[in-house]
C-alpha cells in the first residue's frame, strides 16, 4: 500500500493560449507537513496552486485528496475538500469588516446577520491564537493584518491543507517570524501547509520538504534537512549557479544625478522616502536594496517626474530637475524603466505593437502632425535583432510576447534613446537565467559607455555581483551605501530590516554627499544640517 498523501497531483498540464504554464507536474503533500514550493518567478507555482484552489481547471492530469481522485472545478469544491489558499493579492472585500469577510463564506451561517457574529469570529480567532478586531474594515487594515485575516479565514472554513502564495513578500522580519510561528503551530495541529516562495533562506527555515518547479516543469522534491542553498538553487535554475556576473572597472565621472534631502509621499499620503541623500556617477551601477514596498517605486517615479516631491533637491549635471515635466526630464537623458509585478503596467502599452511601443518616448520628435512609423519599425527591428527578442513580427502586440521578451523590448527602447542616467527597477523580474544575463550585459555595456545606472533589485546575490555600490533602504530611510564587493549578505540583510545603520560610517563626509558635487557651494550648508 502506497503512502497516504493529503494531496497528490499527477501529470498536471495547464496552458494559457500558447503559453505552457505547467507541464506534466507531480506534487505530493503529506498530512501535517510544511511543503515549500520553490521556483523562480514565472515558473508556474501560482498557476499550479490555483488549480488546487479551483481558480483554474487543469487541461489534463489528476488530483487526489486523501487518496480519492477528485475534480476541483471551483473554489467551492476546494473549500469542501478542505483546501484553502491565501492568495498573494488578497481576496478581501474592502468595505466589509473583518468578521463579514469571513462570515460571507460560512456554510451554515443562519439567515440573519446577528451582532454576535463579531464575538464568534473574535473568539474563533483567539482559539487559533490570533488577535483580530472583528469590526475593523479591511480598507483600514495594514498589509499584515489583511494577511492574518486571510489565514484566519481559511482556518475558519476548516481547511486541512493551507496554501500560502508568497506570504513573506510584503512583511517585515518580525512579521515573517510571527507568520512562521503560526505555520508551525498549524502543522502541529495536523494541517498540511504549502508555502510558495523563491527565497531560499525561508525555505530552509520553515519547510519539511521542498518541491521545485522550473519553467513550468516539475524538477523534484527533496527533504529540507538533506539539502542546502547551493543544491536548491541548482534545482531551481537548472545548472550550478555561478553568479559570475561581470563587473567591469570603468573610470567614473563626476556625479550625474545628485539627490539631497528628498522626501516623498506614497499614494496613501504616508512618507515613502524619508530625507534621502545619494548620488550616481557616470560609469557606475548603484544598487538599491530593500524589502518590497519600502519606497523604491516612489523614488523611481519621483526622479522620472511622475510623482511630486514633498521636500528636497534633485540635481542632474548641476541643473535642478525638481518640478520639471516627465517629458523635460526625458529630454535631459534620464531614462526610467520600472517592471511592476504584472510586467506591463508602466512603460509599455500592451495592446500596441512593438513598433508603436518603440515610439512611446520619441513620437513627438517627428516633424509634422504624424508619427514616424518607419523610424519605429527600424528601431523595433534593431532591438529585436540586437537583444534576440522572440516575436512573430515587429507588428505583434506586446501583450502576446512572453515576459522575458517584453522586458527586452522595454530595456531595448530605453537604451536606444541614448540616456546618460538609467533608472531600472526589477529589470530581470520573472526572467529565466539566460535572459537575465542578457539584461546584465546590456547594463554593463551602458556602464562602460559612461552611463550612470540605478539598479533597483530583489536578488542580493545578483546585486552584490553586478553593482559597484549598494544603497539599502528601510521604510524609506537610507540605511547606508556599501561597496558591493566588500559587503556581505548578512550585512545587507541587517540593514534592510533596519537593525544596522551605516549612514554615519564615514565621519569625514556626510553620507550620500559627493565630494566633487555639482551643487553650488551655497547649497552645501542646507543639506549638512539634516544629516
Amino acid at each position, binding site marked *: 500500500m502506497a503512502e497516504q498523501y493529503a494531496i497528490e497531483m499527477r501529470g498536471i498540464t495547464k496552458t494559457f493560449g500558447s503559453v505552457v504554464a505547467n507541464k506534466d507536474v507531480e506534487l505530493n503533500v503529506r498530512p501535517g507537513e510544511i511543503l515549500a514550493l520553490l521556483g523562480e518567478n514565472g515558473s508556474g507555482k501560482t498557476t499550479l496552486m490555483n488549480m488546487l484552489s479551483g481558480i483554474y481547471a487543469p487541461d489534463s492530469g489528476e488530483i487526489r485528496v486523501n487518496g480519492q481522485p477528485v475534480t476541483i472545478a*471551483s473554489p*467551492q469544491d476546494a473549500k469542501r475538500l478542505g483546501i484553502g489558499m491565501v492568495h498573494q493579492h488578497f*481576496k478581501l*472585500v*474592502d*468595505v466589509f469588516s473583518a468578521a463579514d*469577510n469571513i462570515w*460571507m*463564506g460560512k456554510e451554515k451561517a443562519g*439567515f440573519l446577520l446577528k451582532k454576535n457574529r463579531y464575538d464568534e469570529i473574535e473568539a474563533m480567532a483567539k482559539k487559533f491564537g490570533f488577535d483580530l478586531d472583528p469590526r475593523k474594515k479591511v480598507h483600514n487594515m495594514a498589509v499584515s493584518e489583511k494577511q492574518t485575516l486571510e489565514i484566519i479565514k481559511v482556518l475558519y472554513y476548516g481547511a486541512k491543507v493551507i496554501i500560502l502564495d508568497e506570504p513573506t513578500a510584503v512583511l517585515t522580519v518580525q512579521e515573517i517570524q510571527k507568520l512562521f510561528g503560526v505555520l508551525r503551530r498549524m502543522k502541529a495541529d495536523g494541517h498540511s501547509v504549502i508555502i510558495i516562495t523563491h527565497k531560499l533562506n525561508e525555505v530552509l527555515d520553515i519547510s519539511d520538504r521542498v518541491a521545485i518547479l522550473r519553467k513550468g516543469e516539475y524538477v523534484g522534491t527533496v527533504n529540507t534537512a538533506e539539502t542546502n542553498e547551493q543544491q536548491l538553487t541548482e534545482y531551481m535554475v537548472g545548472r550550478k549557479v555561478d553568479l559570475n556576473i561581470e563587473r567591469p572597472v570603468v573610470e567614473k565621472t563626476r556625479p550625474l544625478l545628485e539627490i539631497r534631502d528628498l522626501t516623498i509621499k506614497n499614494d496613501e499620503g504616508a512618507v515613502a522616502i524619508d530625507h534621502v541623500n545619494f548620488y550616481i556617477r557616470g560609469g557606475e551601477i548603484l544598487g538599491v536594496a530593500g524589502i518590497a514596498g519600502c519606497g523604491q517605486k516612489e523614488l523611481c517615479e519621483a526622479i522620472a517626474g511622475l510623482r511630486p516631491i514633498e521636500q528636497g533637491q534633485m540635481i542632474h549635471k548641476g541643473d535642478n530637475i525638481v518640478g520639471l515635466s516627465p517629458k523635460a526630464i526625458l529630454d535631459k537623458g534620464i531614462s526610467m524603466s520600472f517592471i511592476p509585478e504584472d510586467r506591463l503596467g508602466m512603460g509599455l502599452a500592451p495592446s500596441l505593437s512593438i513598433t508603436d511601443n518603440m515610439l512611446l518616448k520619441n513620437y513627438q520628435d517627428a516633424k509634422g502632425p504624424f508619427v514616424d512609423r518607419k523610424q519605429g519599425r527600424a528601431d523595433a527591428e534593431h532591438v529585436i535583432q540586437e537583444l534576440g527578442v522572440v516575436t512573430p513580427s515587429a507588428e505583434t502586440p506586446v501583450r502576446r510576447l512572453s515576459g522575458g521578451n517584453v522586458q527586452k523590448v522595454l530595456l531595448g527602447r530605453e537604451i536606444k534613446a541614448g540616456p546618460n542616467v538609467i533608472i531600472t527597477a526589477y529589470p530581470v523580474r520573472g526572467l529565466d537565467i539566460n535572459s537575465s544575463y542578457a539584461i546584465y550585459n546590456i547594463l554593463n555595456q551602458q556602464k562602460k559607455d559612461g552611463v550612470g545606472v540605478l539598479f533597483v533589485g530583489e536578488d542580493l546575490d545578483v546585486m552584490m555581483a553586478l553593482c559597484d555600490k549598494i544603497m539599502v533602504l528601510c521604510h524609506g530611510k537610507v540605511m547606508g551605501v556599501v561597496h558591493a564587493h566588500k559587503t556581505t549578505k548578512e550585512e545587507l540583510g541587517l540593514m534592510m530590516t533596519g537593525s544596522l545603520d551605516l549612514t554615519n560610517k564615514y565621519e569625514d563626509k556626510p553620507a550620500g554627499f559627493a565630494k566633487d558635487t555639482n551643487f553650488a557651494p551655497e547649497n552645501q550648508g542646507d543639506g549638512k544640517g539634516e544629516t
Partner: protein
Amino acid sequence: MEMDKLGVLTTFVHNIVVYNIPLLYGTTGEILVEKSGSLNLGVEGIMAVGAIFGYILGCYANSLGAGILVAFLAGALCGLLFAVLTVSLQANQNITGLTLTTFGLGLYFFVGSGVKAVSWPAMNDYANIKNGFADVAIPGLSQIPLIGQGLFSHNLLVYLGVVIALVMWFYLSRTRYGLRLRSVGENPGAADSVGINVKRYKYLHICVGCGIMGIGGYYMALNMSGSFNSSCWINGYGWIAVALVIFANWNPALAILGTFVFGFFNTLRVSGSSLAAAFPGGLGWLAAVPTQLYQALPFIITAIVLVVTSVRKREGSGQPQALGLNYFREER
C-alpha cells in the same frame, strides 16, 4: 371661487405617491441588479415589456394578481437575457443594456400596436382589475390630518412597492444572502474564493431585480387605465430610475425617500398650477416655472450628486466597486 386649500395639498401629496411609485419599482429592481455588480441600462425597455404583457394577460385573466405575476415574469425573462449575455457570454454591460432598451421598446410597440389584426382589451372593462387597483385606506394612519389621505390611502401596488423596498433593504443589510450578494458586487474574485457561486448570485438577482422593474411597468399601464396609445407608458421613468439609484446611494430604503423627492418635482409639473392657484400668495410663482425644468430636475440633481460623491471619493458611497465589470475567473 373658494378653493379647498387643504384638499389641494392632500391631493398633491397623494399624487406624488400615485404617479411615482413605478420609479420605486424601477429603482429597487435596479439596485438589486447593481448590487450584484451589473450595470443594467435596460430599465426603460424592461419596464415596457412588463407593462405590455402584464396588461394584456392580466386583462385576459381578469385578475390583478395574474397581471403582476406576468409582468414580473416578463421582466425576469429580460433579466435572464441580460444575464446570459453579460454573465455567461461576457458581453459589455452598457451595450447589452442599451440594446435591451431598444428591443424592449420595440417589443412594446410591436405588441401594443404592431399587431393590427387584434385590438387589445380596455382595462376598465375588467372589474377585478379595476377594483384591485382601487385605493385601500390604512385604518388609523389615513385619518391623520393633511397627510393621512395623501400617504396612507393608496392602491395595493403602492404598499407592495414600499414593502419590496423595505424587505430588500433588510435583505441586503441584515441577512447572510444579502452579505454574499454585496460581496459579489464589490469583489467577485473574493466572493468566488470563499465558495460563493458568483454566477448563480448574479443570475438570480438580475432576474428578480428585472422582474421588479416589470411590475413597475405594469403599474404604469394600470395608472393609464391601460389604454394603449402611441406615446409610451414608460416615458423615461426607467431612466429616472437609473438616476434615482445613484441619488439613493444604492440603498432601497433611501429609494423610498428618493422617490418622494423626485416624485415631488414630477408632481409639481402636473399640479404646480393648481398649487399656484390655491396659494397665490406663497406659491404663485410656481405657475411661471417651465414644466420641463421639473422633468430635468431629477437628472440635474443626480448629476450634482455624482459630482459631489466623486469629489468626496468613495467615503460612504454605496456604489459597488465592481459595478459594470464582468467577472471571468481565469483572468490573469
